[in-house]
């Protein structure tokens, strides 16, 4: 069985842990329990009949270089960068953060995810997408589960190819 290391990163409270919990347990909680340090989780998915072990490192909300050891990113195949569609602060540094991530994981796959889709109307979402200067891979709601499965499955798929 192939194993792949995936990093979940992004600001505090954007829903990284919620996305993963929705993905594994199909569960969502309104309670905010901030992740301390890093939590490693596992889930296997099937890509064209082949089982892939995703080892997902859910990193406490900080992308910046002085808060998270760069070595956490070593050997990762992909990074999921999550921001909160309702909080501009969480995508304000997006470009800088992505540059930084590209630098510490050259050639790694990076997915930019806008989360908490359920909290905004379509036109408000369109406005955010317009404001964000980089291409967003997918818009999700950890609450409703919308696009969550797709996010991880798509990622696994692109890693296997």
């Amino acid at each position, binding site marked *: 069985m192939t194993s792949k290391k995936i990093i979940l990163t992004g600001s505090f409270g954007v829903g990284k842990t919620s996305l993963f919990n929705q993905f594994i347990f199909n569960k969502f909680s309104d309670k905010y329990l901030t992740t301390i340090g890093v939590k490693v989780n596992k889930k296997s998915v099937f890509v064209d009949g082949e089982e892939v072990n995703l*080892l997902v490192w859910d990193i406490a909300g900080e992308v910046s270089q002085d808060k998270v*050891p*760069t070595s956490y990113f070593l*050997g990762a195949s992909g990074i999921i960068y999550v921001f909160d569609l309702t909080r501009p602060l969480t995508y304000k540094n997006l470009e800088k953060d992505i540059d930084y991530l590209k630098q510490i994981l050259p050639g790694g796959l990076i997915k930019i995810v806008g989360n908490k889709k359920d909290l905004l109307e379509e036109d408000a979402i369109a406005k955010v997408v317009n404001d964000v200067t980089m291409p967003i891979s997918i818009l999700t709601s950890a609450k409703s589960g919308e696009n969550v499965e797709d996010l991880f499955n798509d990622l696994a798929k692109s890693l296997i190819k």
Partner: protein
Amino acid sequence: MAESHKPIHDEVLLDRLKEILLWDDRKELDEIKQILDTRAHLSERVSPIIEEHLSALKETFSEDYKEIINKLIEVKLKNSQEEIVNSLYPSLGRMIKKYIGHQFELLKENIDNSVKKTFSPAGFKRRVKSFFTGVKESELILSNANNYTIQEVFLIERDSGLLMGSASLHTTFDQDVVAGMLTAIKAFVEDAFKKEKQELEFIEYGNYKIVIQTFFSYYMAAAIDGTMITQEKFDVEESMHDFASAELTGAKSSEVSNSELISKKLYEYFIKK
């Protein structure tokens, strides 16, 4: 460790480090800290008692009294154990009581052995004393204790933390996840203290220890239950090196990436004894 990494503020790092290490049970680690702090205090308390009795014994000592003296010391140690434990107990709680009790048992057991072999007041005094001050000499006395078991052993890819193989006496957690978390802790510690080319080699958590040896592209970790002296830790490290050079160095990449095969070999080497 990447060179580009800015120096991290010490306090923030230490807090984060604590948070990671105290993942599930901050309290337990605090208690362990207390035990470590108290070792010195314990020494202060115990040394005078032993000193007193030994100076008396020295006067009257002769080969003929060996048995009696041995008994006396044993009794006194036993009494002091109660005394010490009771005076410390209220503030230090159950953990330390268990710890001290266990250490006294070990001590008694080994004093018996040592006395049989090399009884002399000076040597005895030095050894008992060194036990409480934690100096290496203590390891002579405790060297027959030998009560640790390797519970689990992991072979882990160094950068990614992906598991290459593992073997265990009883499976506890998901081993892929353990390998990942272990790598995170290791990465964090190494990053935080950023000493050139230094690797985390040992983690202690209650009675549980993790011995780590890092090789070029992978590392090995053995989770150990029980008491262990430096020599034994060294032995475990040695067998990791032996394993690596026998089974991994020069092995075909198809063999190294076959986790079932690696796991089987790990089992044969470390767990099945």
